């Protein structure tokens, strides 16, 4: 998987700059990585349509980038914007926790 910027800008774009800058760190195309990417896209489409940008970084190709965001676990989702930086590790299969992690939903239960 190469580093790629997936910009989702459907029809009505409220602003030119997305409010949500998300980075997904992976290491090769592993089942977990693929699952994480799929899950992330789904969640973003549902909750952040038009306001987000996902950057996928493959550490096998750019290992030096792991340092900057203190990446330890794979896959890791880093919310660069809005501040503060948030990190979510795992395949993002637990949508509730992802939403909590992204501050998209108040903690329930």
């Amino acid at each position: 998987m190469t580093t790629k910027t997936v910009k989702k800008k459907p029809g009505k774009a409220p602003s030119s700059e997305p409010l949500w800058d998300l980075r997904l760190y992976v290491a090769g195309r592993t089942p977990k990585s693929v699952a994480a990417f799929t899950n992330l896209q789904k969640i973003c489409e549902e909750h952040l349509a038009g306001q987000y940008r996902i950057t996928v970084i493959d550490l096998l190709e750019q290992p030096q980038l792991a340092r900057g965001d203190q990446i330890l676990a794979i896959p890791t989702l880093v919310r660069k914007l809005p501040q503060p930086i948030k990190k979510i590790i795992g395949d993002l299969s637990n949508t509730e926790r992802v939403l909590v992690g992204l501050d998209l939903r108040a903690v329930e239960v």
Partner: protein
Amino acid sequence: MAGKIGKGGRTTAAALGKCATGIVGLDEITNGGLPRGRPTLVCGGAGCGKTLLAIEFIVRGATQFNEPGVFISFEETSEELVQNVRSLGFDLHDLVRRKKLAMDFVRVERSEIEETGEYDLEGLFVRLNHAIESVGARRVVLDTIEALFSGLSNTAILRAELRRLFRWLKDKGVTAIITGEKGDGTLTRQGIEEYVSDCVIMLDHRIHEQLSTRRLRVVKYRGSTHGTNEYPFIIDAEGFSVLPVTSVGLDHPAGTTRISSGVPRLDTMLGGQGFYRGSSILVSGTAGTGKTSLSASFAQATCQSGAKVLYFGFEESPSQILRNMRAIGINLEPWVKKGLLRFHSSRPTLYGIETHLAVMHKQIEQFQPAVVIVDPITNMIAAGVAQDVRSMLLRLMDYLKGRQITTFMTSLSHAGTPLERSDVAISSLIDTWLLVRDIELGGERNRGIYVLKSRGMAHSNQIREFRISPRGIELLDVYLGPAGVLTGTARLVQEAQEQAAEAASNRELQRQRTEAQAKRKALEAQIAALQAQVVAQDQALEHLAREGRDRTTHEQRERRAMAQSRQADDIGTPRRGANR
């Protein structure tokens, strides 16, 4: 001793590759270093020196063995680390610039991390791999990987990943140190020892009687022999150093060369030539008996012969010793300037006995002296329990003897205790034992010295008076008389008395001789007078005889004249002839 272990290390090194750490003493204990290409666990409590050991392993590898290293820290940032070890003379920035070292700080903050489903620690592997490849690392340190447990909650994944990590490190062929915090009843809090099974080193920082001692122990070392004792170690301005002394046995060579004590008469007492080189000498005595003076004298003599002396003072500062010794005519300062004499003074309570010995060991290794002076060794007791002190001194002495270093120790005996009992009970380790004692007599205190024992030489069994003057140390014969041993003024008085008595008897003899001569002269005079009388008598006799003859002649003449006058007959020829 150390050399022997080293030799053994080389033979086992063929069986199991060893990676020399370059840390003083550690390679001796482990017979050559850590297992090459395998992870080693270094565990211990907080502040016991784990990180320092690890970082020195990396730095020495990079600087001494040309093995670049990677330092992954989970607790301190790289910048903090750089600052922390700068005081030890390690310039990490420079090593990074020269591509000898790669540092990475892995921050694990639980509050920032949300766990959602399955994950692994591939990110860590990637970073580690990247660091290793960027410098071609042969050594890796993970300090302290257990921090992961506080940052990530899924311990099942963590444990599996750690197992994979250690396997991966082995496959990479790097020699790794993993540090771990000591747990309650376990070596590490999270039981990492379970995964690192090749070599485990435990560090300990113990406080006994308010004195701290650091100790190191090799808990296990698969596939290699290793020292199993606890070894004291120190962390000082030059880093980590372990004291690898053990009582390995009594196989040190015994030299036959001699070394002067610096006091000619003392040499005479010791079979005429002084101490054996490489022997251990103890001078014991009560306070103020001149133990330090003897030490200084020995130091001076050794320096004069061109050999190096290391002087450990536990009571006085170097400048105090120099000043005091100058007062008794022993000027040590030139030798210090020449680099033949080095002082190392510290308070015994500065740290525990093991640490003292570790410091001493390090100094000896650095300075390579021919003579080591410890003044006084009894102060060591203040730094430990008697049993510990004894065992540590035993180790030290074995080490020194193995190195053929002459050890000169002083021991302070307390007044009232038997002098022959040295406080640290090390008498059996001593080859030559001098006893300096007070002799109280006639209202004064004088010093006497004698050789209590001296292995392998015909030594004097006599007490000498030991006098410290501005010209140095002198040994004098004591007065042995009917009143016992006399020293000091009593000796002088006795000597004066003897001199007086001798003078008196000399005078008496003279007088008698004069008298006899006078008598003889008188007799001679008498003889002369008598002889004069004899001469006079002789003269008188002769006179009488002559007179008699004259008278006869006269009478004859008279008679003849008368006869002539009377016209008497010629008396005839015969008569005339007879008268003639």
